[in-house]
């Protein structure tokens, strides 16, 4: 494998020669595990029968072992792929044959993912996005070949794209072979980690102009406790733990422990106990978030290549490499959950259009650009990616007093039922006094939250709407919310329509909620409670001439 990486010219010839190839045979060591996971629901009755009947029925359990292995072998045997002149073909299917053919210049993205086991075996799972309805998945490819495939598939796209047409390399075999993997930032990152697919992709790609935009440093771990993942993890762990205790009747076993703990705590005061419990929970949640953050984002690196692609690599045990084509990038969302603001952190997501119908993004969860990181780093990275920091720098237009008032009334409406239920429970059913106090506390939080949400509400327009990309591109900026606070920077070129919602109360206040529809997975970017006349201005400025024929200079609604 190392000679493949060291000599991309040779490896390239071996991948793009038009011969049919199979996934690596050693992928058979892990594939049965995946198959077993898929098959467990349908095999569950068999397992139940075997366990309940005993005796000879235990032989049925062999099925549970044999079927996944058989399936893995069949799948491995029937899955082949090749790169011919200008096509990428994948043939798969055990009982029904599928032949998928994708034009190389239609391939948008090649994403790679490798769990720890797969990294040890030097194999990767590839996901090739063609802009059609479904991505093509290729499991268990040899890591070196995967890296080559990655480069070859995207190189054709590069040569086909107009932006890269001017660049010197014609992406021919000679051009790619010449630079070698000499000064790759990705390769230098973790010299010890030979099997990391991100590494393999970086050094095997032979892309001369790869530049690191942002890279993980362990100091970022300080943001982990301020994300909500720890809470989610703790709740999951608690639920699973309780389930296990229930299922296996562990109550009798751990009962005495709990008794003893209760006796031991009897002499402490109640307040002290609550403080200790809270402290313990906070510490446990923080540790869990730390672990989750490290698992997902360790070794994170965002790079930008000359061929107009962004590459996001991250992951401690399971490593992921995601490609985002810049021609499909429509903007960026900088998110700041309320608590992440405390250590001055932020995260960023990419707004990326799918191909075809636009609602085909179910397979890909979200386009994470940056994990929780220092807000300055995030802003720098976003400015770098967008070629301008204008959308982040531009002062926001406020939405006025009426919009602020609506934040208060809506916050009150949201929590009133909860507070009323607590107060009612305390009043009628004699719940302890602190439930009533809870209702008061909740109500007291309303003005605080509402004022934050009012202060963080705004929008702006910047740049030239006729410019699609580059430093002068037009941007629609929309900021709102606290959980998380989202700062959308949307290229005006991405706007493919407008929706204006006016509820009964909004009409009375002269406000509208304006939504710019976009072909990304979220479908729209909204400007909340903006004065109606201002909304019209925004539409006219962001999409010139679109609304001109629907305007009424007399000012009649």
């Amino acid at each position, binding site marked *: 494998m190392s000679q493949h990486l060291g000599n991309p010219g040779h490896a390239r010839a071996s991948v793009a020669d038009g011969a049919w190839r199979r996934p690596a045979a050693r992928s058979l060591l892990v594939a049965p595990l995946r198959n077993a996971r898929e098959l467990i629901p349908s095999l569950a009755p068999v397992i139940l029968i075997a366990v309940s009947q005993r005796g000879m029925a235990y032989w049925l359990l062999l099925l549970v072992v044999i079927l996944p292995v058989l399936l893995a072998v069949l799948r491995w045997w029937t899955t082949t792929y090749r790169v011919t002149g200008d096509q990428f073909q994948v043939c798969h299917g055990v009982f029904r044959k599928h032949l998928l053919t994708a034009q190389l210049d239609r391939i948008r993205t090649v994403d790679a993912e490798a769990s720890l086991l797969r990294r040890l075996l030097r194999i990767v799972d590839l996901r090739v996005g063609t*802009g059609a309805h479904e991505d093509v998945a290729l499991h268990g490819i040899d890591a070196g070949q995967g890296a080559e495939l990655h480069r070859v598939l995207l190189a054709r796209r590069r040569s086909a794209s107009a932006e890269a047409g001017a660049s010197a390399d014609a992406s021919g075999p000679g051009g790619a072979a010449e630079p070698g993997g000499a000064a790759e930032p990705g390769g230098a990152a973790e010299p010890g980690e030979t099997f990391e697919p991100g590494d393999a992709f970086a050094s095997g790609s032979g892309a001369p102009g790869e530049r690191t935009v942002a890279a993980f440093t362990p100091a970022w771990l300080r943001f982990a406790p301020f994300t909500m993942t720890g809470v989610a993890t703790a709740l999951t762990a608690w639920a699973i733990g309780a389930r296990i205790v229930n299922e296996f009747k562990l109550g009798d076993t751990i009962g005495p422990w709990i008794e003893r703990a209760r006796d031991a705590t009897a002499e402490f005061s109640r307040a002290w106990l609550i403080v200790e419990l809270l402290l313990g929970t906070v510490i446990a949640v923080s540790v869990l978030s730390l672990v989750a953050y490290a698992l997902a984002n360790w070794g994170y690196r965002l790079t930008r290549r000359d061929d107009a692609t962004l590459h996001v690599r991250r992951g401690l045990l399971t490593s992921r490499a995601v490609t985002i084509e810049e021609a*499909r990038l429509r903007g960026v969302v900088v998110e700041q959950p309320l608590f992440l603001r405390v250590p001055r952190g932020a995260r960023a997501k990419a707004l990326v*259009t*799918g*191909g*075809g*119908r*636009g*609602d085909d993004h179910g397979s890909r969860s979200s386009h994470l650009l940056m994990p929780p990181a220092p807000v300055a780093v995030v802003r720098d990275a976003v400015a770098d990616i967008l070629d301008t920091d204008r959308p982040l720098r531009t002062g926001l237009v406020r939405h006025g007093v009426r919009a602020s008032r609506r934040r208060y009334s809506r916050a009150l409406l949201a929590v009133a039922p909860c507070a009323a239920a607590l107060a009612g429970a305390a009043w009628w059913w004699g719940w302890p006094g602190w439930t009533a106090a809870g209702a008061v506390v909740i109500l007291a939080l309303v003005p605080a939250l509402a004022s934050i949400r009012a202060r963080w509400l705004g929008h702006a*327009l*910047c*740049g*030239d*709407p006729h410019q699609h990309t580059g430093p002068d591109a*037009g941007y629609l900026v929309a900021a709102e919310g606290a959980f998380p606070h989202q700062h959308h920077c949307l290229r005006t070129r*991405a706007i*493919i*329509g*407008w*929706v*204006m*919602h*006016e*509820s*009964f109360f909004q*009409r009375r206040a002269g406000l509208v909620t304006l*939504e710019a*529809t*976009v*072909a*990304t*997975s*979220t*479908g*729209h970017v909204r400007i909340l409670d903006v004065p*109606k*006349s201002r909304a*019209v*201005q925004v*539409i*006219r*400025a962001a*999409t*010139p*001439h*679109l*609304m001109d*024929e*629907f*305007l*009424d*200079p007399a*000012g*009649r*609604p």
Partner: protein
Amino acid sequence: MTDTSGEAAALATVRRPAHRVSPKARWVWLISAAIGWLFLLVPLGLAAALIPEAPTALRAGTIALAVAAIAFCLVMPHWRYRVHRWEVTEGAVYTRTGWLTQTSRVAPISRVQTVDSHFGPLERAFGLGTMKVTTASAHGAVEVAGLPRHQVEELVARLTTVTSRDSGDAT
């Protein structure tokens, strides 16, 4: 931003779309709303009438609900009819829908991906139909319900020829 227009243009507001939908659409809305209410009211009314020991609260509630339903069915279709409007120009499709909450949608013709027509059973009974224009956004479908059937077919034909002229994937 390059807002070359002056103060007067800043005051300009968006006018309503030019055309109303067919007046018969009110019947479609009335009947479909009434059917929805009946699913709720019939079981309640049967329970209130047939069960002798039904609490008075149930009877009173059913009557109140029936009054609300009748008011809804009388008010909603007319209100909706006053709001629902549409317009298709060379450059854009523009609609306004809703009644209590009103929604205006604009989709540039150049970004239209598909043009569908749809004729529900109730709509067919009144000779009406729905035209639906989708863009590449999961959020941006523009729908005009309650148009006369021939108008739907005309519009679909017109829009199909216009959109097929544009190349590119309209994202």
